[in-house]
């Protein structure tokens, strides 16, 4: 079974806030800062599966919770041990799964670490995002993914809108909190994930840790998933794993590839926008 990776989009309003806080608050501080990101399940087919950072990332109300590590030099940014960082984050995710905390706080299993080097003299920003996933090697689809009828999709979308919970349970026409999986008959429910994947019949990266959590919690080799989308058809999956999950998967993945599909950071040059002369013109 395969999953569409996320692609990080960063607004100028995000960098503008980084400029301000780096100069006035953080200075040479390199400790992780809490950060939020938003996703959209309404983007059109064929566009990137988007994770967005903006001015709102600093306001503490976003759907995804993560952290930013802002490094002071390009060398420390480049040499940062991202594998170790992701492994440590994966430990936290696994802890949330094992303790059952994930059922009340699903945001604890989908987190991200956004690492940045900001050259504030030249207004060039280098960044690399990772959304850690504990990868199960032997996930497979029991049958072809099925399209969901629009009426059912609409019920789930309106629940999402009201509850602001991006992972929940759907059973016999009603929506329930995740803890319901502890008492429901396994054949009677599906797990719904608000999924920014824009590829038909392929689930997105944010489903992966949820699948792991469900398989570990139920100790079963099978589960059903709904990849919920707003701008297009939602998809139903029947997922299999060869043996029940009893130990933490060792393979941690999720470091993002850049626009050229290379395992490298991305860069953006905002000197034309942020240049002091330009800013002075604005200050009038």
């Amino acid at each position: 079974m395969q999953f569409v990776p996320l692609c990080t989009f960063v607004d100028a309003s995000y960098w503008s806030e980084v400029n301000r806080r780096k100069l006035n608050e953080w200075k040479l501080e390199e400790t992780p800062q809490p950060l939020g990101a938003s996703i959209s399940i309404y983007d059109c087919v064929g566009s990137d599966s988007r994770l967005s950072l903006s001015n709102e990332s600093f306001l503490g109300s976003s759907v995804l919770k993560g952290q930013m590590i802002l490094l002071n030099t390009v060398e420390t940014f480049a040499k940062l041990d991202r594998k170790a960082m992701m492994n440590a984050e994966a430990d936290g995710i696994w802890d949330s799964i094992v303790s059952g905390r994930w059922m009340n706080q699903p945001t604890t299993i989908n987190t991200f670490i956004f690492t940045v080097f900001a050259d504030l003299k030249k207004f060039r920003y280098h960044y690399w995002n990772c959304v850690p996933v504990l990868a199960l090697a032997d996930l497979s689809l029991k049958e072809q993914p099925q399209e969901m009828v629009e009426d059912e999709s609409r019920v789930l979308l309106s629940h999402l809108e009201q509850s602001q919970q991006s992972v929940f349970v759907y059973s016999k026409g009603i929506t329930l909190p995740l803890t319901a999986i502890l008492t429901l008959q396994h054949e009677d429910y599906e797990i719904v994930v608000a999924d920014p994947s824009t590829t038909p019949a392929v689930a997105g990266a944010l489903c992966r840790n949820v699948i792991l959590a469900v398989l570990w919690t139920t100790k079963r080799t099978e589960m059903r998933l709904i990849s919920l989308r707003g701008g297009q058809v939602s998809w139903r999956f029947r997922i299999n794993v060869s043996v029940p999950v009893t130990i933490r998967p060792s393979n941690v993945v999720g470091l993002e590839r850049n626009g050229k599909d290379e395992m490298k950071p991305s860069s953006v040059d905002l000197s034309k926008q942020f240049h002091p002369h330009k800013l002075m013109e604005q200050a009038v």
Partner: protein
Amino acid sequence: SVGELLTPVLRESKFRETGVLTPDEFVAAGDHLVHHCPTWAWAKADPKKLREYLPKDKQFLITRNVPCHKRCMQMEYDPTQEKVLSGNEVGAEDGFAGDEDSGWVDTHHFASVVPVRTLEEVKDLDKDNDNDDDGEEEALDLDDLVDSGALEENDPGRFVVKNEKMMESEVEKPRTYDLHITYDKYYQVPRLWLTGYNERRLPLTVDEMNEDFSADHANKTITMESHPHLDVPLIASVHPCRHAETMKRLMDQLAENGKELSVEQYLLIFLKFVQAIIPTVEYDYTRSIQL
């Protein structure tokens, strides 16, 4: 701006008389838009630029990642491609032949297939861009520093677009736009803002964005200004000085036909009329408006 500072917040509805909105009416129209076109969402302001006449979590509207496949040039009207089609010709295929007199004009009848850039051309373009992109040098330094080989992941679960498809999508990967609608306190109408990104998700320059604005409006109706709620550099905005007038005219036309426009529908109509200014930006305006 000073004008904005000195203008009191509009409290009493003047929508029917002059086509302007109060902040409350803007919020009602925004809620309606978000409900019917969920690609749009309410956004919060930078705390320093919070406008207290709007709810804290409903300062302005935003839609991101809107594709823009063609440049305006490619859409421009060319009279040599024109052919008058008779009513029969038009209706025949759909099974309802029109009358002889009411001919249609097919403005792109003789047009060849839309010119799509070949991969080679795109690569050449890329090269050109790289040359005047002085950020490239810095990126190379970083490439040397990052040992990407050691970071390669063994992830069979990662979905990769198939090879031949990827070539295609590389050619067709569109520019994208983020659109914002703010409430303009001075003109008392909604105001549209645009930030564009190229195929590689880098911000577009003003000149590049002008390729996506209709020639009649670039540099005139569209101006670079500072955002009322965000602490960002100047961004492109459709100047709101004619919005109320246009809205009022539309309402009058509808009234002649015995129909009435509700204040909630304001932004749906607004998005339809600004489409003339940005004809190739494919935002969600497809929902038919029932009056």
